[in-house]
């Protein structure tokens, strides 16, 4: 195994991980922390935060960077919205982040289920803000309207990589379609925040990164996350490079200079990592209450 750079060290506490894992098991829930093999699981679970992954644990797409398994999708669990709300309440989440596998088999891509989860959290945890990290819903505006009608505080859709690498890394997605999701969400609900993220280390150039930032910013996107691609296994897309912490500082400065309201850029930054801090920072700057 190739030696990891010194900055790719994370803490892991088995007791904390077991505690959250048990809660999720009892409520028949999945987290992207576990399914995507997130390196931050130890830190987040110890802080009693987790990102829910709804609509099953099998994805209908097979992105080359992602550890979530592709396979026959599960039946949609009608109890899931209530169970996510129970877990959010048990964990006393101030900010709940909900993502899903991609469900191209469902006519609305799972949009109504997303909306049900947002509403269930709102009902059970009135003070909790909600962020949805959605798949592209095939770019269908009606499906997006269904999610947006539930009024999530943040609508996040990850670009994941630069335009030039879509065919190799996200072969079943489309760069323009993902930009369209962000653009439509901002146009339909200008008062809610939009957010996206991408990885470095897949073979992109700095020029391509700059163009990606420009394209995303042109959709009106507020928040950007940039993190290191970490290859889940030898079967996944190869790692082209480890960007240094100084590289990430440079990307953050560039993104802020271009006009993003908040940028989280670090080797282990992930789209939902410290998501509440990003929301609070943007709201504080715009003078809106948390």
């Amino acid at each position: 195994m190739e030696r990891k750079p010194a900055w790719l060290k994370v803490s892991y506490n088995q007791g904390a991980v077991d505690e959250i894992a048990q809660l999720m098991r009892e409520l028949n829930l999945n987290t992207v922390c576990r399914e995507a093999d997130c390196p931050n699981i130890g830190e987040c679970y110890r802080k009693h935060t987790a990102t829910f992954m709804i609509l099953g644990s099998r994805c209908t797409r097979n992105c080359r960077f992602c550890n979530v398994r592709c396979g026959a999708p599960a039946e949609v669990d009608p109890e899931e919205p209530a169970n996510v709300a129970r877990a959010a309440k048990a964990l006393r989440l101030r900010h709940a982040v909900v993502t899903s596998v991609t469900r191209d088999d469902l006519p609305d891509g799972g949009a109504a289920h997303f909306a049900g989860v947002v509403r269930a959290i709102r009902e059970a945890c009135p003070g909790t803000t909600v962020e949805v990290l959605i798949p592209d819903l095939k770019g269908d505006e009606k499906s997006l309207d269904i999610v947006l009608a539930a009024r999530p505080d943040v609508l996040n859709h990850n670009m994941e990589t630069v335009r030039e690498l879509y065919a190799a890394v996200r072969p079943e997605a489309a760069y323009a379609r993902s930009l369209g999701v962000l653009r439509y969400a901002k146009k339909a609900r200008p008062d809610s925040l939009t957010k996206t993220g991408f990885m470095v280390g897949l073979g992109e150039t700095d020029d391509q990164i700059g163009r990606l930032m420009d394209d995303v910013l042109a959709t009106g996107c507020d928040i950007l996350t940039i993190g290191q691609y970490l290859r889940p296994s030898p079967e996944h897309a190869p790692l082209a490079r480890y960007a240094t912490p100084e590289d990430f500082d440079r990307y953050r400065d560039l993104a802020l200079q271009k006009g993003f309201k908040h940028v989280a850029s670090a080797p282990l930054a992930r789209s939902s990592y410290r998501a509440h801090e990003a929301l609070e920072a943007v709201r504080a700057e715009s003078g809106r209450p948390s």
Partner: protein
Amino acid sequence: MKQQILMPKLRPGMEKGVLCAWSVRPGERVEKGDVLFEVETDKVVSQIEADDSGIVSGFLADEGDEVAVGQPVATLETEQ
């Protein structure tokens, strides 16, 4: 009470882990949350924290060893 410290399952499907470095020495006292050892996986190096306080009474694996998930790597003498 003697307690075994086990190789954790850091990710789904993990069967073995490489113990790449010890962060403590035999006979050293550790507090809950202190880093005991490091395990390298495909993505990162995980610093494994103690679940209890006590004295590390012995190593059962060396740096560089590949250890099966759930197998003991050290013993810890706790006060309870």
